């Protein structure tokens, strides 16, 4: 324990007290403060409108497989927030991922065409063939998670990460395996451009960026989210490609 560590410890403890007292505040009458654990207030707040899908319309019940033409149409409310109500955040987030992948490839530029020298030590038969079987399954699972993201838990980030994991395993399993960077680039460009273009089309057709300009269908049907599933597929492709790029670059570094 030298002087610096003690100083750090004191700072951290003071900071902790400072933050934790926020939870201890007991509001006087009429005042608001942080909610207690498990007592989050949703009633009459933005969250309730998202759950009711009644931001622009009046409050109606949303019923599984019955309600039609509800605002964002997707049964997974988190998805409807990510890809519809707050889609600009998601565009920003995809941009951050794109930035990280671009920056990383610029950082590790010099050795770009070197081969991956990171493989598991023994080129074991079981591992190689295991991954051969696992690879299509993971790709399938990832695609399923993306496409059904508006109906069930999961979505483009999770699915994209699963697909990237599949490529990670493939890269680990054999020296010879190389990703075709041109194809990756094409997917990357297409996905990014189509996300922005969908937004711009909304601006052109309905007068507002990232509008859900397609008809929404019956809740919990596959084709029910309007542009939500389309946006989710573009995000999913983008996430998968960027994460794969990141892994690929790091491995070749």
């Amino acid at each position: 324990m030298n002087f610096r560590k003690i100083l750090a410890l004191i700072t951290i403890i003071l900071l902790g007290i400072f933050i934790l007292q926020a939870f201890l505040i007991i509001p006087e009458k009429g005042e608001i403060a942080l909610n207690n654990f498990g007592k989050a207030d949703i009633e009459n707040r933005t969250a309730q409108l998202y759950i009711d899908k009644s931001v622009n319309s009046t409050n109606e019940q949303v019923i599984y497989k019955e309600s039609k033409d509800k605002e964002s149409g997707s049964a997974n409310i988190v998805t409807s927030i990510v890809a519809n109500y707050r889609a600009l955040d998601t565009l920003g987030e995809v941009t951050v991922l794109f930035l990280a992948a671009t920056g990383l490839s610029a950082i590790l530029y010099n050795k770009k065409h070197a081969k991956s020298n990171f493989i598991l030590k023994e080129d074991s038969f079981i591992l190689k063939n295991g991954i051969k079987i696992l690879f299509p399954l993971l790709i399938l699972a990832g695609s399923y998670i993306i496409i059904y993201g508006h109906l069930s838990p999961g979505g483009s980030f999770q699915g994209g990460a699963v697909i990237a994991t599949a490529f990670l395993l493939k890269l680990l399993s054999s020296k010879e395996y190389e990703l075709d960077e041109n194809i990756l680039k094409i997917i990357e460009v297409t996905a990014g451009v189509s996300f922005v273009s969908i937004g711009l089309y909304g601006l052109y057709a309905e007068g507002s960026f990232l509008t859900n300009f397609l008809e929404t269908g019956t809740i919990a049907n596959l084709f029910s989210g309007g542009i939500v599933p389309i946006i989710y597929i573009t995000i999913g492709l983008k996430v998968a490609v960027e994460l794969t790029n990141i892994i690929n670059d790091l491995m070749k570094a």
Partner: protein
Amino acid sequence: MTLLYSLLILLMLISGIAALIFDKLVNSIISAGMVSLIAAFLFYFLRAPDVAMAEAAIGTGLSTAIFIITLYKTEGRGN
């Protein structure tokens, strides 16, 4: 149920501390992955299955993988 959560959180904190004090970096990275994994469980208990999946896939899987790759590219190259 509360006890289960509290135990999990305690375990998460212990793995967090362990990740910082282990000498070997591999162990640190595995401990950090452990923290992420427990966090994924906690998200599930907090009724956030989407976040749990994301944390499991990205936090536990990919983050750990890129940490390991970096370790291999740097100090781990010798071993």
